[in-house]
């Protein structure tokens, strides 16, 4: 590198410009140890870490220590200052970077006096760091008792953590003690002190205890720096906290909660995810548990879901995640408290109150013979609600509240999607006389907005699909009427001109007819295979089958062996015979 290049590199390097700032900070921090300096350190720790990272890459990219020191003349002074600051060396990442910087400056084959001197200095600093002891008397005692240093320090650290944890547990802020000065100040101080210790495994019980502290005092709680540090460690997956502490972190730190929800949504809706994987992921995320414990956490999570759903109205994957989530949430909630309509209202303040108990009752909790009437009632309630609101909308085009009410009712239905699955199953066994309300409910689930007044036309199409399937699956002769089948398949084809029916609606009807209908298995499978193959909806059909299977596996469902067997066979048919590339033997 020529001198000019070096100069240019030096001028452009951000490290050179920032160096005096950090050196000044390090000197100030080393000068006094007051609450103010400690606060300033924890405020700057994250930026310091980034700066040390930059320094390390710069040191590693430059060929010799002589050159590095030419470029960064203040480097040695800065590193030296930082090494003696316990708040910096306590923090895992900063300490790591600091040590790596020192080691990277060591020249294996020193070529001049500067490098030899630097080597000596580095070794001396490292030696002091690892072996210097402040408390001479303690060292002497430990020597007499034959206790190794590492063991001693580890014991002291654990003891301190226990003692501070105890003192936090014992202190309670109460109104009567306000004039004495409450303990929340000490909780704030403890949380601030823990900022560098977030990733220290020995400190994690203390961090957990701080997070779970009941904050009754409005004046002081946990320090912002503490919550920020926890959040960024959480993002780096660097946190060693137990379940309850993680729940408390979400309760205290909104960014961490949002991150966790978005992570769950992302991993549960990726291309490879299946309903059974989602069923595992959701409880593992701990979020349903956190929601059951803290209503405010639930409200935030539900708000995120609401926003996501508005943009993904037709995404069955997303809906499936919400349904699974609601199911898990209720399981956790029922472990904590018996549900009353009042307690549910706190969790679902925006939903139509009359629908809460009916929809949150699990189908398995109800006698099988009353399922149909229950759903007809739900359907008519929703129908009335939408008609009222949509009428109002007609008279007043800026009626946002009306829209909002319909959306909330639909959102609730999506979350309680297990009822929609019951609807489809009942449609297989119902006659034409009472399929109307059930079809309405199914159509509303798939087409919540009555944009351009399409619902009437969609209802007609849904009825047509049901009619087709009803006659297809009730024919006794084992002959497939090709024209019937063909016109059913044409229902699934996209029609740009008119409001077409969501394929998932038609498919779920088909799959349920094939599973619960009376036709022999082979014919059911053949019909399904043909429809799925010709419409190219293999993935969607697999998903519908998987969630059906999952629901039937739920405790208290009414499925028998025959049904399970049919689902397995349908699954195999779709998987093996419906590959788009494979030549179909049954092509007509």
């Amino acid at each position, binding site marked *: 590198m020529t001198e000019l290049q070096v100069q240019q590199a030096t001028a452009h390097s951000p490290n050179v410009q920032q160096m005096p700032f950090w050196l000044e900070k390090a000197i100030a921090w080393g000068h006094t140890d007051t609450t103010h300096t400690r606060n300033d350190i924890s405020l700057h720790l994250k930026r310091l870490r980034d700066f040390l990272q930059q320094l390390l890459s710069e040191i590693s990219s430059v060929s010799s220590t002589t050159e590095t020191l030419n470029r960064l003349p203040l480097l040695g002074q800065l590193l030296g200052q930082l090494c003696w600051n316990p708040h910096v060396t306590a923090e*895992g990442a900063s300490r790591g970077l600091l040590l790596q910087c020192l080691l990277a400056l060591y020249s294996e084959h020193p070529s001049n006096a500067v490098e030899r001197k630097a080597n000596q200095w580095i070794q001396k600093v490292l030696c002091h760091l690892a072996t210097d002891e402040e408390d001479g008397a303690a060292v*002497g005692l430990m020597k007499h008792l034959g206790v190794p240093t590492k063991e001693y320090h580890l014991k002291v650290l654990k003891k301190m953590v226990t003692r501070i944890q105890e003192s936090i547990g014992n202190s309670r802020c109460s109104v009567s003690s306000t004039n004495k000065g409450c303990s929340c100040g000490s909780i704030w101080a403890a949380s601030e002190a823990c900022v560098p210790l977030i990733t220290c495994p020995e400190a994690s019980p203390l961090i957990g205890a701080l997070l779970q502290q009941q904050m009754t005092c409005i004046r002081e709680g946990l320090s912002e720096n503490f919550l920020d540090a926890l959040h960024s460690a959480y993002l780096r997956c660097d946190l060693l906290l137990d379940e309850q502490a993680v729940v408390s972190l979400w309760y205290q730190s909104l960014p961490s909660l949002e991150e966790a929800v978005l992570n769950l949504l992302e991993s549960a809706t990726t291309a490879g995810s299946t309903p059974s994987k989602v069923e595992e992921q959701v409880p593992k995320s701990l979020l349903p548990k956190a929601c059951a414990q803290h209503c405010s956490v639930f409200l935030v999570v539900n708000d995120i879901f609401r926003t996501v759903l508005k943009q993904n109205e037709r995404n069955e994957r997303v809906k499936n995640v919400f349904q699974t989530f609601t199911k898990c949430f209720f399981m956790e909630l029922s472990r904590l408290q018996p549900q009353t309509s009042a307690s549910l209202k706190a969790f679902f303040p925006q939903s139509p109150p009359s629908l809460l108990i009916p929809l949150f009752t699990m189908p398995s909790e109800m006698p099988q013979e009353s399922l149909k009437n229950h759903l007809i009632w739900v359907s008519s309630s929703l129908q009335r609600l939408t008609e009222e609101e949509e009428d109002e909308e007609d008279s007043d085009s800026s009626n946002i509240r009306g829209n909002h009410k319909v959306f909330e009712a639909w959102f609730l239905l999506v979350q309680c999607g297990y009822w929609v699955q019951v609807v489809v199953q009942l449609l297989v066994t119902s006659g034409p006389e009472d399929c109307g309300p059930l079809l309405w409910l199914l159509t509303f689930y798939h087409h919540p907005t009555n944009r351009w007044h399409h619902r009437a036309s969609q209802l007609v199409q849904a009825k047509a699909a049901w009619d087709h399937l009803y006659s297809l699956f009730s024919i006794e002769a084992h002959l497939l009427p090709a024209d019937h089948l063909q016109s059913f398949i044409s229902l699934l084809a996209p029609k740009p001109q008119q409001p077409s029916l969501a394929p998932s609606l038609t498919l779920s009807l088909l799959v349920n007819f094939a599973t619960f209908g009376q036709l022999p298995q082979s014919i059911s499978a053949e019909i399904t295979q043909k429809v799925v193959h010709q419409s190219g909806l293999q993935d969607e059909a697999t998903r519908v089958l998987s969630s059906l299977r999952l629901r039937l596996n739920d405790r208290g469902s009414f499925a028998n062996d025959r049904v399970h067997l049919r689902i397995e066979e349908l699954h195999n048919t779709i998987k093996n015979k419906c590959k788009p590339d494979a030549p179909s033997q049954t092509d007509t």
Partner: protein
Amino acid sequence: MGCECGQRHMEAVLKNVGCTVELLAVAAHSGVVNEWDEQTVTRAFHWARYCEHIYSRFHGNPVIRGVLEKQLQLTNHRLKEAFPEYNAVSFLDLGRCQDLLLLWLLNNSALPISIMKMLFETKASADSTSSDYEDVRGLCNQIIQCKSACTVLRPLLGVPSVGADAEVQGEMLMERLGSALSQSSDPRRVEDFLSSVLQEFEVAAEHLCPVIAAALLTTDSAVQTASQDFLLDWLQSRRGVLQHVCTALPSKVLADLAERHQKFRDAFCKLLKKWASEMEYRVTEGEWVHAATNSAVSFQKMTEHYLTLFEACPSLRTEVEDELNAQRIADGDFDVRGLSVWGDILLALRK
């Protein structure tokens, strides 16, 4: 046969300890260290740990200890000839052999950078394949982390406690004392051990008191009852130390100790009375002052001790007050301030 076997075993121990001490000398003073690799260093630490083990096994056994000390003397002598700057390794040093190895290694200018990198390795820089040498890799990083974390947390511990450091030291002291008591039937030897350990504090007496208090307050196991009893007897036989402890520690800790141990309670009450009897009234200041001018015990402090003591052991109150009253009557039974220290204490306690 068994004897012969034991002798052969002892010979092996002596040889191993001798070799490890030689290894320490090399680690400290030889340029050969430059050729050491990770495996060499790990093995050196293993041998150092072996010596720690030998120490903890035999430090209470005077016969074996004597043999080992003799061996060390011989080895030290030889090593001093080879390396003039060599510091002799004592039997006590064997207990912390790894510390010594680390310290000497880090001070050797021939130490190669690869070993420094290994010792100071952090989790972030460790690659996944480095499962070997687990205990030595990153050793210094862990030490620095623990020490720094302690420094950061120390200010958070409340004042009335003895402190986490003292607590740990007290616990370790009780543990070692317990094993010394179980190994030796001669109480004099254990007493020597205790005196030699606590001698460390002669220059730092303010550190000794919290350690003794913590040792007497540990609640770990039944073995410690014997150790605590022993320590209490030792304390009573050294009145200077006892007085020092009672002067230096806060009232709350002293009251805790009195609540836990009858022996301490008696000694403490006796001492309080002694202090009171040594007080004289200074008319110029209008105050009771301890006759020995350098004593830190004030009249105020004494009443505070009494009050805290009554809080911890309520049954003590009547007994002490009766005694004080008897003394006050003996002093002439006047109800005027400044005439009888007993009367004035009583007055202060009933306030």
